[in-house]
């Protein structure tokens, strides 16, 4: 069988309420600062979430001189800004050889909230990519995926898979979602939100906080100056329940095993884990089961949900970028919100910033529909 080309991480970007750009995000995480705040809707009705300040995005947007007369939605602005940053830093990239992949769960769903019950074209999920294609004059096909909470990570998998088949040289993988009444009311109805800042893996965890963000990763089969390679990845369904995670963690364990197999690694080779850690009772318990099955419970593990909230289509992409930064900087980043561990088996929650030689990082995510995702990044400095 012919050898598939290796897929490298060329650049990354995070635009989130926590910080503008990946470095600004890392500075906040190193200081254990969260972007989650209390937001009052009316009277007694409030919720905790990581939201952009009202005019922040517009300020950045006008500063970068997007001058088209077209009105863009908040999510379109976030994604356009992300692409702008990445393409400005990587101006030599051949766009003819680049595929655009966009991960989102709900896109511009807030546009369905209109008085005439119309269905605006921009409420279609693929419209996000069309906006970006038009603006940056990208001619290749557009891939949009909507696969619940694993979407952002799966976007990286899809990019890797297309590059491995030599369909393109580069992939620009984007992820993004914003907080709307649609998602907020839904998670309120599901009673899945904490009324304070969320507490991943803590015994008093009560649920998620909402968050909004965009992120982007540039992948390439040409190594350039990259020090990080994707060496394994997989998804697997629980085949158990559409909205509740499996009790046994079998699906997630299968995704991790399959990623390890592709990477030709034993679980013991993993140096750190960026997990899903939503802080719902059942998700965190399920993850502990899955990590336990593979004897990964001792590995330093971080959940970033108490910094960002759950940013849905962006979350697994942001958290993959943070795995990559861990490897590049040889730093374990602190998990936030776990005071007393409340999962079985006990996981090794990384509480503080710590320097350590790191060769392999595991990123996992799970979501509604029973989907699970795992990806392994390799630090080529220690090849």
């Amino acid at each position: 069988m012919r050898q598939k080309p290796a897929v490298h991480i060329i650049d990354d970007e995070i635009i989130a309420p926590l910080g503008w750009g990946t470095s600004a995000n890392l500075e906040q995480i190193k200081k254990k600062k969260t972007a989650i705040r209390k937001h009052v809707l009316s009277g007694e009705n409030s919720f905790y979430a990581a939201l952009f300040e009202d005019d922040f995005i517009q300020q950045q947007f006008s500063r970068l001189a997007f001058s088209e007369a077209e009105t863009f939605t908040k999510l379109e602005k976030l994604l356009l800004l992300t692409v702008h940053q990445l393409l400005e830093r990587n101006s030599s990239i051949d766009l003819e050889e680049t595929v655009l992949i966009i991960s989102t769960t709900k896109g511009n769903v807030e546009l369905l909230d209109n008085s005439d019950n119309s269905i605006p074209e921009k409420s279609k999920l693929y419209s996000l990519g069309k906006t970006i294609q038009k603006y940056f004059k990208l001619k290749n096909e557009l891939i949009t995926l909507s696969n619940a909470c694993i979407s952002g990570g799966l976007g990286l998998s899809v990019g890797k898979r297309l590059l491995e088949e030599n369909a393109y040289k580069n992939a620009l993988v984007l992820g993004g979602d914003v907080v709307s009444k649609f998602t907020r009311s839904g998670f309120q109805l599901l009673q899945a939100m904490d009324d304070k800042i969320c507490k991943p893996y803590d015994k008093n965890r009560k649920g998620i906080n909402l968050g909004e963000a965009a992120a982007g990763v540039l992948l390439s089969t040409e190594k350039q100056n990259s020090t990080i390679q994707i060496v394994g990845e997989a998804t697997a369904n629980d085949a158990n329940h559409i909205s509740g995670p499996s009790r046994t963690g079998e699906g997630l364990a299968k995704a991790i095993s399959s990623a390890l197999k592709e990477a030709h690694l034993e679980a013991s080779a993993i140096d750190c884990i960026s997990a899903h850690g939503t802080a719902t009772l059942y998700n965190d318990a399920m993850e502990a089961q899955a990590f336990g099955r593979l004897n990964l419970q001792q590995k330093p593990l971080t959940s970033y949900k108490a910094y960002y909230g759950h940013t849905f289509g962006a979350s697994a992409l942001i958290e993959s970028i943070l795995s990559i930064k861990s490897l590049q900087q040889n730093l374990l980043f602190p998990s936030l919100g776990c005071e007393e561990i409340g999962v079985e088996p006990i996981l090794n929650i990384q509480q503080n910033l710590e320097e350590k030689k790191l060769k392999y990082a595991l990123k996992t995510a799970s979501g509604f529909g029973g989907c699970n995702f795992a990806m392994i990044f390799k630090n080529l400095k220690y090849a």
Partner: protein
Amino acid sequence: MHKNHQIPASVMLRNHQVIFNGKVIFETAENLELPAFLKACYQDLEIDYAKFYKMDLLSKLGFIASEYLAKDRQLNPETALILQNSTGSLETDLNYQAGISDENAFASPSVFVYTLPNIVLGELSIRHQLQTENAFFISEKFDASFLIVYLQNLFSTNKANAAICGWLDLDKEGYNVFLSLITQDEKGKALTAENLKENYEQFKTRA
């Protein structure tokens, strides 16, 4: 060399007909609403699966189509589920939106759960006990050449041995479903973008 995957079965749901490998195998009166058509299909399939009644329409469409594909055969346990459509979960999104827009209406958490297009993949995984690769793509038009490349990667990396893939679209205008079973366990049409697309275009011209 890649393993020899073929398309032994394909199913279309359109114009109140179920078309299996090019032949109409079930039809109802054309004035039936979609839920009634789906229920008639369910009865035609002679199955007993209570979860069917709880599903949203997109999941029901995917469920019925894949039941016809799985009928009289054992699915390979490593069958990936790869679907595309242009509208995501729009139909259920609109239902849920109606529930939160009107103060007198009732927004239901069980409707909210279906406001993700990949929920149907969860339903199919549960039904056929497939702990396999899943992905739901949103595309303005059916993208057969992308699917072929994607499947080629899944098969050549041994992440899947077989697949149910295709188009599962629903909006106010109507439904458009075309799913294929791809496997090396049975003989069928060659796995090419043309063979996947041919059926899709056939549908488009007759619509």
